[in-house]
């Protein structure tokens, strides 16, 4: 089955089995192994990518053929040139990762979150990432990391921090 999908700005054409999950399509057809797989029940969120810019989806709960004609952004697409995306910077600065396995999914979920809600409260952040599991960090520094990026976005129009 033919699939034509734009991933991180590049158009790809592949012929795959309909049952191929988007996560494995990205990992094995396109070699984008930043997207991880941690469960079979759509629970862990290690596989989250952005669909059409602002929709965080679990790529292991979507068939590659469903992405036909759509745009996908993966963790590999966050960095612009040699410059880290502010979210990546935030995760690094705030120690928002340990083993790194959940990190790409966490990054993509928060990437989509901030497009819809550029100034989330800590509670809203915790709710937004509650479809992504992390076993290492206890989430506290992940919340800080997302907060850091949100503060960057909001810095200009904020009167007082």
């Amino acid at each position, binding site marked *: 089955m033919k699939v034509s999908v734009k991933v991180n700005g590049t158009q790809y054409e592949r012929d795959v089995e309909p049952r191929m999950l988007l996560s494995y399509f990205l990992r094995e057809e396109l070699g984008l192994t930043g997207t991880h797989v941690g469960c079979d029940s759509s629970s862990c969120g290690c596989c989250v990518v952005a669909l059409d810019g602002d929709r965080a989806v679990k790529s292991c709960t979507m068939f590659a053929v469903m992405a036909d004609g759509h745009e996908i952004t993966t963790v590999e697409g966050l960095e612009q040139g040699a410059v880290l995306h502010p979210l990546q910077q935030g995760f690094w600065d705030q120690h928002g990762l*340990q083993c790194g396995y959940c990190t790409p999914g966490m990054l993509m979920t928060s990437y989509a979150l901030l497009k819809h809600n550029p100034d989330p409260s800590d509670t809203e952040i915790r709710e937004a990432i*509650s479809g992504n599991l992390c076993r290492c960090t206890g989430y506290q520094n992940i919340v800080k990391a997302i907060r850091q990026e949100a503060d960057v976005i909001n810095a200009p129009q904020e009167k007082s921090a």
Partner: protein
Amino acid sequence: MTTTDKPRHAIGLSMKRKEDPRFIRGRGRYVDDIVLPNMLHLALVHSPYPHARIKNIDSTAALAVPGVKAVLTGKDLEAAGLAWIPTFHGYDKQMVLAVGKVLYQYQEVAGVVAETREAAHDGAELVEVDYEPLDPVVDPFEARKDTIILRDDRENKTNHIYHWEVGAREETDKALAASDVHIKERIYFQRCHPAPLEPCGGIADMNPATGRLTIYMTSQAPHAHRTVVSLVTGIPEDKIHIISPDIGGGFGNKVPVYPGYVVAAVASVVLKVPVKWIETRTENLTTTGFARDYHMDVEIGADKDGKVTALKVGTVADHGAFDAAADPTKYPAGLFGIVTGSYDFPHAFTELDAYFTNKAPGGVAYRCSFRVTEASYAIERGMDLLAGRLGMDAVELRRRNFVGKDQFPYRSQLGFVYDSGDYHATLDKALEAIGYDTLRKEQAECRARGELMGIGISTFTEVVGAGPSKHFDIMGIKMFDSAEIRIHPTGSGIVRAGTRHQGQGHETTWAQIVAEELGLDPQNLIVEEGDTDTAPYGLGTYASRSTPVAGGALALASRKIREKARKIAAHVLEVAEDDVEWENYAFTVKGVPGKTITMKEVAFAAYTNPVPGTEPGLEATFYYDPPNMTFPNGAYIAVVSVDPETGETKVKRFVAVDDCGVVINPMIVEGQIHGGLTEGYAIAFMQEIRYDEGGNHMNTNFTEYLVPTAVETPVWETGSTVTPSPHHPIGAKGVGESPNVGSPAAFVNAVMDALSPLGITHLDMPLTREKVWRAIRDAKAAKAATA
């Protein structure tokens, strides 16, 4: 010995992690990211029965699936002499693929190798296994009766695996009998699972040209695994190359060798191409190393003033179908002897009996030192039960029994020599942070309003850093660890260790230790672990042993280099070696201010201007055999409220004050504590691997085995005290596991404190809503009946 007061060059700094840039870019390299030419995929077939004879296995249909290359069964492995492999400590053996009968649900019975993952699973589904079901034994207390013998492969026809004991039984019994007050409770630490987000997996690549077997695997202990593979297969150890790439969390789950690795290796040898095996989440939860599963009878006696007179703990351990517990060979119950905790008890005795059941094998240390979490939970729960019996504040009771700071080094009744600590100070700091006295007032007001609010204390002591070779080995291999450091001419360098991090940040902290010792820039010290061809031999990363053991090796290898550097410095400065001093991270000449040379300059000289008649270059290797274990400790306080209508517990606050000795990187230490507390929270309230009476595994995926999300996870408040380990080269003790060891008791003690007005004294974990709701309902009914 290093102390924390003077300004430091690298140690003690919250340096950002050096490994992060690849992870945040999605450029980590986990085992499933690795693709080799002509690689095939392995899928395993599992038994739906917990106990059954295998009458026949028919692979015909599976082999007919397009893309399927081979089906392996226990019979095939028998031919290769690999149907069984030794368990972790070598006391027992375990099946790779079932031969004769299956002993637990989901046990591996066959392996299907195919061109794609999908085809492998298509084939696995079509392997027809004809079973003759047998009655399962799921309760260790049933197993103890030996009415059904599970392991007919063993000489001793009994389900009893071993008895272990330490301490003075008679004196302890006498003291208990003579005590004014006395509590006894059966406390169950439920079977749970580390469930790292990255499942286990490996790629076996037997190269027919070189005759060399390379195994990429999710291994917390690659060197030990190389030796095991060699011993098991007979392949010379030089022909085995283990590469442990980035690991997506381990928490003890990635210490043992699992059938998938072995079947993949056999398949690669047979088919002469690389074979990849990647676990599904269900396989991870149902077949790989579980943790805990200890039924502990805790007995404490005390005088009426609350001074404990004796402690006795008798444990029944459920080891599942094979004795695959991950414990040092001479310590079948791990370091459970730490069960006297932070307290100075005049008498103590503990014994343990382990049994086979029709459950998955394991008994790994789920983010804890060997069996220390079970022990810590038992004593911290026990102290609260005693406080309740005495009508004494839980804090006061602990203060009266703490080992005093002037008692260190302290030899416990069960044989450990505690290195250092100041338990009173650590507890006081936690009490201050949480505002203990105000909280108790607040609680009184809540109770007046009929609300259920609880405050729970846990003042634990861990024993980590296995360990001194006179005591600790795994199948004879002593539990030292190692470091190799090479300083390049320009003052940068490479650091290798026998450990393997899974998120702990060794690439950063190891560089900090070496940089501190040598006055070099940690940014220019690359750290490499996990490749058995390049790293020095070590026992790996688990049981909080990396910093206590490998950390020591790193410091001492650095000091070896510093000694050589001093000679070079003297040569370059043209002074006598005795006149050269190491001061402010550079070499200076006694009494000649300003005459200094940096380590960077020395490094250059080591290659360009070596000391005549001496070995050029600047590198060192050190194998560190620690003189003792280290004893991290802490004081944790949880505040909870319980909804009597639903049984739901809300954690209002949690303060953790940890003493892990000298801190190498405060940011990383805090991160470790956040993570461990979160796992402790999960264990206390939601995690359990449960089997129904028919031996069915009831928690086979992440919708049934719960990992808390950011919404349920409490906000953690952390603090620290520092009592350096006197025997550790940099005074560090290790921290990764303290929060998981110490926190379950704090949560449970808090909930029990909340329920105490109803007369409820103990409930086993996990404290599910229904369990708590039921206890409240029954207690109220009982009250009503007596009223």
